C-alpha cells in the first residue's frame, strides 16, 4: 500500500489501465480528456488528506445495524422465459458469449 497519494497525475497509460480493469472501451482520441477530467476530480478528492483521521473508525453504512437472515426456503420458481427475454444472444436456454478459452 502506498502512503497518502501525492498530487495525482494520471497519464495516458494509467487511464488505459483503469479502463481495462473496468472493461470500458475508450476511444484513443478521448483519453487525454478523460485524463484531464480524472486528474481534476482527484485534485478535489485530495482535500481529504488535509484531515487527520487517526483513530476514526470507518463508516461503511449509515445505519449501525446488523444483517438480517432469511430462512432457508425455496421461494423462487422457474421464470426462465421472462428472465432471459432481455438476453442479446441465447441458444439451448444458455446465454451465449464469445468462446471462453482456458
Amino acid at each position, binding site marked *: 500500500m502506498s502512503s497518502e497519494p501525492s498530487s495525482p497525475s494520471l497519464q495516458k497509460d494509467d487511464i488505459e489501465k483503469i479502463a481495462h*480493469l473496468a472493461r470500458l472501451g475508450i476511444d484513443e482520441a478521448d483519453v487525454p480528456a478523460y485524463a484531464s477530467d480524472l486528474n481534476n476530480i482527484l485534485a478535489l478528492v485530495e482535500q481529504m488528506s488535509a484531515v487527520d483521521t487517526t483513530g476514526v473508525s470507518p463508516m461503511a453504512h449509515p445505519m449501525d445495524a446488523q444483517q*438480517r437472515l432469511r430462512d*432457508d426456503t425455496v421461494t423462487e420458481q422457474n*421464470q426462465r422465459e421472462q*428472465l*432471459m427475454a432481455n438476453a442479446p444472444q441465447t441458444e439451448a436456454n*444458455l446465454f451465449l*458469449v464469445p468462446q471462453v478459452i482456458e
Partner: protein
Amino acid sequence: MQWEVVIGLEIHAQLATKSKIFSGASTAYGAEPNTQACAVDLGLPGVLPVLNKEAVRMAAKFGLAIGANVSRRSVFARKNYFYPDSPKGYQISQMELPIVEAGELEIELEDGSIKVVGITRAHLEEDAGKSMHGDFQGMTGIDLNRAGTPLLEIVSEPDMRSSQEAVAYMKKIHSLVQYLEICDGNMQEGSFRCDANVSVRPFGQEEYGTRTELKNINSFRFVEKAIEIEVERQIDIIEAGGRITQETRLYDSDKNETRSMRSKEEANDYRYFPDPDLLPVVIEESFLEAVKATLPELPDEKKHRFMETLSLSAYDAAVLTASREVAEFFEVVMAAADGESKLSANWVSGELMGALNKNGLSLSESPVSAVMLGGMIKRIADNTISGKIAKEVFEAMWKGEGDADAVIETKGLKQITDASAIEPVIDEIIANNPGQLEQYRGGKDKLFGFFVGQVMKATQGKANPAQVNDLLKQKLKA
C-alpha cells in the same frame, strides 16, 4: 539437493442448503439450464442480496468442529472481476473479516502418526455459474443455475509436506463436512472441490519458495498426482537454474501435466471492498450455543471412544469412523448384536465392505441392513450358529432370503450343541474308521483334524466346533 515440499489447500465445500446463499432459488443439482437462476442470481438491475441463515449456521458449525474462532462479527465483501459465469461482475465473498478463523485438524499419516494441520480461515461466498462448451455457433453457453450456491472456502496453513499428507487432509475435511451434514461431499457433482498451493524449498530453509496454484482438482487421486507432477516440474526448473513464476495452473489428468491458465494469468486486481448491500453479520452467543447443541460426535471423538470403550484397535476404529455413514451403520449393527463390538467391527469392515465393493454398491444400497447384520452377529455370539455357518447365512441375507433367524430356521442351520446328539455321530465315525483311529492313537496327532472334518461333514457343519473338539478328544483317548 534435498527438496522439501510445501502445500496449502483451499477447499470449496458447497453447503447443503435448500436455497441459495442470497436468493430463494433452489440449489438442487442437475436442473435444466437457467431454470434455477432467479432475478437475484442473474444480477438483474435493481435486485439485492439477502443472506441465508442456514449458510451462516453451517459455517458456524464447521468453525466449532475445528475448534476455531467463530467471528461474532463478519463482513461480506465484493471481489470484482469480469467473467461470464459471474453475473454481477463481482463475487460476494468475505475478505478481511471471515466467519471462521484459526482452527485445526488432526490427520493420520501412513506410519500411524498424527499430524495437526492449521486452518487459517473459512469464509462464506457464492458459487459461480458454469460455462458450457458445446456447439453454440462457436460460442460458449452460460448456465447460471449454480450461481449463488453457498460455498464455504476452507483455507489451510501451508502445513502439508507431501502429496499424501495433502490427500489425508482433504479426506479428513471431506469426512468432517459430511459428519456435520453441511455438505454432501459429492465430488462428481462439484460439491467438494480443491485448489492446491504448491511450492518447494531446500530442506532446512525457512523461507517459502514461490508457489503456484493448481485449480479445481476434483478427486483425491488427482490431487495426489497433480501435486506430484507439479513438484517434479518445479524441482526440474530450479535445478536447471530457472525460477518459478507465481501463477495459476490447471491439472490435465489425461496428459498428467499441469499447464498455465493464460486466461487467469493477467495480474488480477480484485478491488475488494465491503458490500454496501449487506450489513455486518453478527452472531449472538445464543445462536452459537444452539449450533453447538447440534454438533454430532466428531470423527476423532468417535475414534477415541471406539478404542477406549469398545477396545477396538486403532486401525479398526479409524476404518469405522472414516465416514459418518459407516460409523453410524456400525453402531446400529453393534446395538442389534447386543454390544458385540469386536465381531461387529470385523463383520462390517470385512465381509460387508468386501461384498459391497465386489458388487459396486454403496453402504446405503446394502441389501443387508445394519439391523439384519447385527441380528446375525447375535446368533454367532449366543452359539446358535458358528462363524463358518454365518458366512452362509450372510450370503442368504444378501440374496434377500430374509433375516438371520429366518435363514437359520428355513435352512436348518442351527448349531447342534446337545452332546447327546453329537456323541452318536462321533461314535459312528470312530467305528467306521478303525485304521485312522489306530494311527492317531499311535501318535499321528494330525489326524485329529480328519475326525473333526468328518464330524462336521456328517452334521452339515452345524455341530458346535468347540464341543466337537472336546468330545472327540475324550473319545479318541479311550
